[in-house]
């Protein structure tokens, strides 16, 4: 790290920015240390991880305060620290980090949620023998994620991005002895890689066009004026500008990470990992990384848009987001695994965020990201607590009536659920989702997304109600009676619940503090925020939709706890639809018969090539050399060896002769010595005679 500092050239960047690298570095270092620990050293590992992350949180808060101070001072803070990593030829590979409002917000969110989940998992993983390994991976993940957040160079971002992917793989397959877990891990890894290929292509293209990897570099970065101008000027295929094309490539990467259609398949399976992992990685932070990425490269997507208008790239993002939202919500209705339901809801919420980005700009999407991070983490931890309490039971049909057994979990879970549904006015989810809907309503291109998103909202409310009814209402249908979880698990729940409520306050139309902060505008409080045309109507409709969903859910599933074996209520009504929903609309099967089948066929072809063609060539070469070797061997035996043995005999006989001089008697040697001296001296003297 030392040379980073010494490299850091920008004298303008403040102390805070100079030392920003500490925030990701601390957890990474912690994970390194934990990796060196012995397995039974649980307390040390936990303390290292939590301590380092809380330090990072502290620093993040400092950074946030720094940006905040700058903003209230009325200027947009964007400090970068860049340095050349490798020089070759005239170009250099630059790395660097940036501190702006976006990064600051994400830093605080990631480190805060991460810390809570760390504390939670101390309780959750208490009985796991690989406790230390778990925390090693977790802190590595935290470090990588924070790295993604602060990185100012496409390359650094990609490194951290891949590191995040790796840790996600490791943690999904944490219980590698379960075949399903191992498979899920592989699936996640491969699918996300698939997206990352496009991402890498985008990066390369960007680098080749702009000649710099840095995003912001005092006007010379690839996201700043001149470079963007060039990018938008030149045209790629099918009417896209280079900027748009690159944007779409990067979006492909983001889609892979954020489980957008059609790459969402890995995310539900990822629930095979421990629940804290699901909460941290697959709900709050990593999956949000895709959204964050789009937000980060937003200028690239946005450039070339007329005021009020939009660009092709953003349109694509919007449509995919909206589609994903509805699609995943639909599937979520048909699931019975508590965590899978949440997983699909995550996917759909991510769809919302993407749509928000595409429709209303960075602030809208990011606001939903932040709020969602909190309440979804809350929901997952609640689910974990439920699973913990029900002795690793995950099927919602085998639960029920837990609101009596686990009151604290119930309350917090309910809060999270309402926030997710977007229960009006009180809960943060309402405001963030409302922002998206509003943006959709005013979208100039098409009304489609708006209706999709509204329908998604309805579904969200519905399937969450269904889940809660199954889990908390009715009577207990499991085997062993459930029990409330320990403090170390419930306290984080409470904290998250608190934030799930209050966070909404910073994004209301009356006081859009968050949006202003991100866009660097001044903010004032005024009720007139609500006075915009149609806003109230919209709020009303969305509230109505939510209520409709809740009521529908309660009406269908209500307080009647059906037998686990019994058919689902919807199944009665429309079996074919239900089957589709239950089987996730056959996406996996579709991939099975297309992609996987193709790969299998190609594998067979390659195998045939290997055996027949290349194998044959290799065998032929080997045979020729074998023949040659035989020839050489004959030569060796009959010719070379003979000569060698002869010479050896000669040597030994000669040695024997010489050895006879070695009488082994000191005095003989002494005599010979003396004689030699005499002779030499005599010669010397004789020579030196005048």
């Amino acid at each position, binding site marked *: 790290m030392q040379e980073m500092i010494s490299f850091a050239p920008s004298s303008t960047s403040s102390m805070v920015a100079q030392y920003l690298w500490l925030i990701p570095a601390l957890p990474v270092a912690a994970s390194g240390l934990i990796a060196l620990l012995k397995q039974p050293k649980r307390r040390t590992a936990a303390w290292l991880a939590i301590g380092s992350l809380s330090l990072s949180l502290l620093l993040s808060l400092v950074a946030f305060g720094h940006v905040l101070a700058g903003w209230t001072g009325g200027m947009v803070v964007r400090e970068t620290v860049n340095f050349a990593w490798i020089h070759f030829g005239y170009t250099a590979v630059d790395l660097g980090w940036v501190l702006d409002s976006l990064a600051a917000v994400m830093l605080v969110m990631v480190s805060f949620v991460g810390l809570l989940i760390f504390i939670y998992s101390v309780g959750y993983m208490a009985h796991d023998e690989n406790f230390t390994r778990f925390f090693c991976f977790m802190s590595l993940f935290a470090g990588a994620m924070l790295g993604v957040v602060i990185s100012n160079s496409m390359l650094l971002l990609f490194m951290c991005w891949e590191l995040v992917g790796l840790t996600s793989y490791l943690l999904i397959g944490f219980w590698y002895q379960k075949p399903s877990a191992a498979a899920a891990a592989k699936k996640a890894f491969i699918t996300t890689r698939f997206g990352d290929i496009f991402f890498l292509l985008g990066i390369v293209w960007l680098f080749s066009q702009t000649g710099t990897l840095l995003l912001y570099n005092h006007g010379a970065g690839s996201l700043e004026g001149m470079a963007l101008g060039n990018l938008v000027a030149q045209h790629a295929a099918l009417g896209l500008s280079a900027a748009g094309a690159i944007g779409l490539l990067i979006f492909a990467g983001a889609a892979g990470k954020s489980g957008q259609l059609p790459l969402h398949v890995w995310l539900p399976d990822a629930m095979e990992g421990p629940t804290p992992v699901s909460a941290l990685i697959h709900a709050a932070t990593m999956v949000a990384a895709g959204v964050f990425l789009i937000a980060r490269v937003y200028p690239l997507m946005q450039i070339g848009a007329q005021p009020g208008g939009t660009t092709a790239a953003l349109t694509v993002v919007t449509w995919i987001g909206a589609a994903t939202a509805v699609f995943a919500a639909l599937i979520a209705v048909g699931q019975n695994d508590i965590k899978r339901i949440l997983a699909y809801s995550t996917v759909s919420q991510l769809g919302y965020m993407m749509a928000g980005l595409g429709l209303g700009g960075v602030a809208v999407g990011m606001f939903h990201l932040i709020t969602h991070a909190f309440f979804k983490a809350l929901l997952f931890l609640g689910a974990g607590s439920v699973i913990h309490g029900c002795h690793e039971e995950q099927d919602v049909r085998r639960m029920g009536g837990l609101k009596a057994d686990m009151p604290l979990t119930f309350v917090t879970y309910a809060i999270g659920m309402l926030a997710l549904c977007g229960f009006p006015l009180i809960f943060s989810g309402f405001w963030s989702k409302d922002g998206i809907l509003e943006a959709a309503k005013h979208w100039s291109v098409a009304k489609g997304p708006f209706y999709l998103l509204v329908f998604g909202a309805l579904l969200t409310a519905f399937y969450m109600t269904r889940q809660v009814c199954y889990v908390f209402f009715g009577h207990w249908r499991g085997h062993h009676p459930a029990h409330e979880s320990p403090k170390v698990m419930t306290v984080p729940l409470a904290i998250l619940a608190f934030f799930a409520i209050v966070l909404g306050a910073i994004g209301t139309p009356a006081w859009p503090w968050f949006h202003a902060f991100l866009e660097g505008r001044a903010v004032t409080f005024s009720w007139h925020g609500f006075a915009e045309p149609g806003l109230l109507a919209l709020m009303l409709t969305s509230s109505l939709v939510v209520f409709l969903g809740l009521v529908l859910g309660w009406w269908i599933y209500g307080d009647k706890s059906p037998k686990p074996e019994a058919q689902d209520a919807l199944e009665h009504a429309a079996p074919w639809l239900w089957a589709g929903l239950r089987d996730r609309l056959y996406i996996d099967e579709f991939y099975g018969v297309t992609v996987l089948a193709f790969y299998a066929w190609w594998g067979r072809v390659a195998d045939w090539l290997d055996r027949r063609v290349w194998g044959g060539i290799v065998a032929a070469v080997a045979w020729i050399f074998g023949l040659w070797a035989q020839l050489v061997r004959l030569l060796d035996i009959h010719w070379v060896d003979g000569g060698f043995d002869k010479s050896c005999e000669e040597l030994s006989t000669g040695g024997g002769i*010489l*050895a*006879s*001089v*070695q*009488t*082994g*008697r*000191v*005095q003989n040697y*002494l*005599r010979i010595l*003396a004689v030699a001296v005499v002779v030499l001296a005599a010669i010397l003297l004789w020579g030196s005679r005048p």
Partner: protein
Amino acid sequence: MTGFATPLANYLLLAALLFAIGLAGALTRRNAIMVLIGIELMLNAANLNLIAFWRYGPHPEALTGMMFAIFSIAVAAAEAAVGLGLVIAIYRHTNTTDLDKMNRMKG
């Protein structure tokens, strides 16, 4: 103790004779210890040469010969210690100090 005029040659001859005697002792006696004694005598002869040349040399104040002699005396002491140690060790293994009997290293 300054002698009036003993020529250098006398000292050299004395040294030569002593050296020869030492050598004879080393070559003719059976006992290993006697060989060591002979070697000591030879070393002493060499020392005598050094001192004599120092005394009669052009630059006695440079002390070269003297130093050489002193160092060689020290080295001789070390040599005696190690040599006798070896003799004792050999005696321990083969109960003899007779060199004619010690020809294990015969080639």
